[in-house]
């Protein structure tokens, strides 16, 4: 197979072990007789060997690790969203409803201006007035004698 840019790309993939297995046979056949591709593989080997992995100095990871151990800071929006989450809203709503009902009931029962109480007092006054009238009638009767 003729040397071209596609073969050079395959050479790069092959030199780093990333060539698809279904193309490997075709490429190896080409590689046997292609000095350009052999050169590419050779050069990638030189570059890789000349840049070995460098160990990170001790202490370099201290700052990132310390930052990772800090609790995650919530943004203001996240705090609001958490405060108003469904899990919290339902019991809070129920409690508010109960307190509202209790408050209204207490207000109605504890007030001295309720119509029920007024009616009761008016009734009492009416009876007392009737009794007074009866007493006045008795006095008038006895005065006649």
């Amino acid at each position, binding site marked *: 197979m003729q040397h071209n840019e596609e073969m050079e790309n395959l050479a*790069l993939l092959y030199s780093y072990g990333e060539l698809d297995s279904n193309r490997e046979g075709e490429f190896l056949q080409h590689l046997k007789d292609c000095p350009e591709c052999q050169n590419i593989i050779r050069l990638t080997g030189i570059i*890789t060997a000349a840049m070995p*992995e460098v160990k990170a100095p001790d202490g370099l990871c201290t*700052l990132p690790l310390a930052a990772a151990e800090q609790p995650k800071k919530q943004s203001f929006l996240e705090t609001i969203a958490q405060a108003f989450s469904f899990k919290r809203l339902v019991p809070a709503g129920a409690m508010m409803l109960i307190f509202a009902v209790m408050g209204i009931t207490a207000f109605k029962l504890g007030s001295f201006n309720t119509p029920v109480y007024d009616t009761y007092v008016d009734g009492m006054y009416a009876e007392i007035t009737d009794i007074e009238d009866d007493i006045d009638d008795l006095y008038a009767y006895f005065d006649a004698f």
Partner: protein
Amino acid sequence: MIHDDIIIYNVKNGNTEDFGLIVQKYKDSLYSFIFYSVKDEAAAGDIFQDTMLKALTEIDKYKEEGKFKAWLFTIARNKVTDHFRKNSRFIQLSEEEDADDFASSSDNTEARAQSNISLEEISQYIGRLPKEQQEVILLRPYLSFKEIASALDCPLGTVLARMNRGIKKLQQFMGEEYAA
């Protein structure tokens, strides 16, 4: 070994201490890439810490798609670019500008045996490549070509082309002849 996306999921859900696993896993490869890019130990240390801190603080921006390593190296690459921008004495060539203008005649003619090429020489030659070619060559030891394409947000073919042009240019700098 726990998959990166599982670790990241835990970190996003409040277990930030799990990020330490990420730091330990990638510290050497990430530091190596940064070191070979800037060729300065102190600067490499600063950029490394900035990269890890940024990855932690912006972890919510990463969508678990099995590309965390490429995402992390993208942050490092951007930090390296920022470093060069601040230190304007470093000349960063683009592919439009050709490094041939900067190659001295003595380097082109000087013969170098394959086995004698040193780290310093390779670093020097890589530093004379256009930025796009440098990036690919420096990332390749740590990322696959597909991961590099993801990190640089370009097609795989473009990555391979840049790598190809880069190593051919390095060969010119090394003063070797194409084998006939």
